[in-house]
């Protein structure tokens, strides 16, 4: 099925072949994202960005992706100065935006907000993170990073570390990696374990998953360590936050014992989970990961808005 005109709310909305289509297109769009090549595939297209939660990377990478392909954007970056502050429902805001733009990108603090938006919008909606729920475009760029490095996703051993409960990026990522046949190792404090329903889904699809609280054992023989930020804003109890965040820092000394091809990923922003010494090692992949956000979002936007990327591949 073509991606043209489609909503992307959850990574489950995309089949494996559609995910690979986006990743393949993204690979060919890297020179455009780097400014070395120019395309005008999205000329005349307008993308609305509605961000009801703070975001730097996600919003800017969508804006960059659109502009690099000749398109334009309109943005709600601060809901406190929009009619949302007057009590307008999300449904009405989305209806209004869908009258103006050709597609919508939504970030919202409530889970399910994008699914609701997709129901009321007659233009495609892309979920850019809803509460502790889904964040499918982050998953796509995470997969792009692994695929670029290892040329495959099947059989990769990926350690997911940190906040697996509230960290929305890991839920989508775990689902996608499971469907591609990667092996997952979960390493988190017991209070931040992967939610039951995500685990249930992984078990249902027959994914290889195990838990290993001890990080040194978890990363032995691993290909990827995916570190997430322990999110202060999701904790009711700050004492509990202080306790668990202190215990989840990646110790660079552990790099002595990993495979030479091993990479460390992080959705960023990082706080103290990965010390800067790791940045200078060949294992650090998180800045490449942040860059790949642009070609991946270019690929997705062009396939949704015009059904083609405008580059060969």
């Amino acid at each position: 099925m073509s991606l043209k005109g489609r909503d992307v709310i959850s990574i489950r909305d995309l089949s494996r072949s559609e995910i690979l289509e986006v990743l393949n297109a993204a690979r060919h769009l890297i020179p455009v994202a780097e400014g070395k090549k120019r395309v005008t595939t999205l000329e005349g297209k307008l993308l609305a960005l509605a961000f009801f939660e703070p975001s730097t990377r996600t919003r800017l990478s969508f804006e960059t992706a659109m502009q690099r392909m000749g398109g334009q954007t309109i943005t709600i970056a601060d809901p406190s100065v929009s009619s949302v502050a007057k009590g307008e429902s999300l449904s009405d805001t989305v209806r209004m935006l869908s009258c103006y733009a050709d597609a919508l990108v939504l970030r919202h603090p409530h889970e399910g907000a994008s699914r609701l938006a997709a129901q009321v919008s007659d233009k495609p909606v892309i979920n850019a993170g809803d509460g502790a729920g889904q964040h499918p475009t982050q998953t796509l760029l995470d997969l792009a990073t692994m695929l670029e490095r290892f040329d495959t996703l099947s059989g990769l051993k990926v350690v997911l570390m940190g906040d697996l409960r509230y960290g929305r990026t890991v839920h989508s990522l775990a689902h996608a990696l499971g469907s591609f046949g990667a092996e997952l190792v979960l390493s988190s404090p017991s209070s931040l374990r992967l939610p039951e329903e995500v685990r249930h889904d992984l078990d249902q699809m027959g994914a290889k998953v195990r838990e290993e609280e001890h990080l040194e054992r978890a990363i032995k023989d691993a290909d990827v360590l995916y570190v997430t930020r322990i999110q202060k804003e999701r904790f009711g109890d700050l004492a509990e936050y202080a306790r668990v965040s202190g215990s989840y820092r990646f110790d660079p000394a552990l790099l002595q014992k990993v495979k030479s091809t091993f990479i460390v990923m992080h959705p960023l922003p990082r706080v103290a989970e990965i010390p800067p010494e790791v940045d200078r090692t060949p294992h650090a992949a998180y800045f490449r990961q942040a860059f790949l956000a642009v070609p991946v979002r270019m690929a997705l936007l062009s396939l949704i808005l015009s059904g083609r990327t405008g580059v060969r591949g």
Partner: protein
Amino acid sequence: MPSNVSGPTGKELRITPIRNGTVIDHIPSGLALEVLKVLKVENLDKDSTVSVALHVRSQRMGWKDIVKVEHMELSAQKSNAIALIAPTATISIIRDFKVREKHPVSLPDRLVGVLTCPNPNCITNHGEPVESEFEVVRRRPLAVRCAYCERSMEEFLPHLAR
């Protein structure tokens, strides 16, 4: 279809037959009052009789509850809610003292407006003009998942939309 219930003295107590209405039989013992909440009997026509039999002998179930409501035929939404909390229940529609339809409750694959999402951060709990929607992801034991926030639930009584 009169239901006969033996009292402690062995004397037959009879729940009177109804001309028109609904009989919900084979409710797991102890859940009749929850079924009444689903039916919102307080909103019924004031001439309607509601009969409740608690802890009745049943060949099939050991013990069961029965609810009879005059002048009411169940909406699909209420029938789905009963199927969630009392999956063994059977529903008989009575017209002119005769059983016109009798069927076990059955749960569709999607439940709209029947449950409220237990996730306080789900968009359906934040004043949007939207009905809750759940998909059945497993039937035994029953588990449903919110179509919006994708949170699963296996306990339904506290989350029935009232």
